[in-house]
């Protein structure tokens, strides 16, 4: 899911930085409107560490191996802090381990960070049912976790399929992209279950971490 350097054309990489810049600006603006913007920094920092480490947990699914992303979980727990957290995590992954790339940092942040924000909005829909309903928390936690990753994988697939360069055997490349996309389906379920378990646990022991008492300054 981390697109490395040299795979996408320069125009797409540039477009990725534009969308990532816009999403960062939007997120920071929303964070800045909170009563205490620093309040969410400790949990955002810890979950950035979790996001950073999650990419090392590989699950072998032919033709490649897939790894945990946890962008849905970040969205659910961090809200608007999720996008900067994803961006910082991806930066360190690219710089330290060449996982992803600096030229594709914007694209990767977009395809993982924006689904994280969508997962946050999706999880907030549980308030329509009831804030303290365990079933609603479980269902929306699962949907947010699985959906966050699913949307990201789908976005990566569309980007890769539409930008296969001319010098590559397009049919073979597209076939392997589709195969890799389908290989992420079990991982989506896994991330959905993991997110549901985490939000259930947080609702029981520390419900304010799920944005129960979010305050924004006027």
């Amino acid at each position, binding site marked *: 899911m981390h697109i490395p350097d040299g795979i996408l054309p320069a125009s797409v990489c540039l477009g990725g930085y534009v969308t990532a810049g816009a999403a960062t600006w939007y997120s920071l603006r929303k964070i800045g409107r909170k009563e205490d913007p620093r309040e969410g920094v400790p949990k955002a920092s810890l979950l*950035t560490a979790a996001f950073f480490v999650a990419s090392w947990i590989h699950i072998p699914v032919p033709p490649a191996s897939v*790894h945990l992303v946890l962008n849905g979980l970040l969205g659910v727990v961090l809200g608007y802090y999720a996008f900067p957290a994803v961006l910082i995590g991806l930066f360190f992954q690219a710089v330290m381990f060449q996982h992803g790339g600096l030229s594709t940092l914007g694209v990767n942040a977009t395809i993982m960070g924006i689904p994280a924000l969508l997962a946050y909005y999706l999880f907030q829909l549980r308030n329509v049912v009831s804030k303290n309903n365990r079933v609603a928390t479980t269902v929306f936690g699962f949907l947010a976790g699985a959906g966050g990753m699913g949307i990201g994988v789908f976005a990566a697939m569309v980007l890769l399929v539409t930008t296969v360069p001319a010098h590559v055997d397009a049919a073979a490349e597209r076939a392997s992209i589709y195969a890799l996309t389908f290989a992420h389906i079990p991982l989506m379920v896994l991330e959905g279950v993991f997110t549901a378990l985490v939000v259930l646990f947080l609702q029981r022991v520390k419900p304010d971490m799920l944005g129960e008492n979010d305050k924004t300054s006027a």
Partner: protein
Amino acid sequence: MKVKLLTTVLVLCFFLSVPAVASAHGAKISCETKKAIEITATYDSGEPLSGGQVTIYAPDDPSTPWRKAKCDENGKYIFIPDPSKPGTWDIQVRQAGHGDMIHIPVGEDMTVGASGSTGYTPLQIILMGACVVWGFIGTALFFSVRRGR
């Protein structure tokens, strides 16, 4: 009768004594030693990019592929660079949106220099990862303490 038999034997002997010319069906194998470059493409997890698409760019034209091929099932591919094109050869391997490019300097005498790949040992990776994680934890602790005051 004897004369007829002798004539037949002589004719037969003549045809059998003519050496068979088989050049049209001949085969010849020659060999020479050359320096080749073997690349191995793997995912981060160590699994090979079996069937990965290899694109090689020669030093004199880094925008047009010099050769296109595929890795074997172990993610390996061997090629012999053109001796008349010394310089940095760029080799890209790609599969399912994953891939990497390696830059191999090849001298005029076909000596291969150190490639640009950065291979860390598992211990180095763990240490580097631990440093980054500790940085995040430190940030969390810093902001927690400020909030507590």
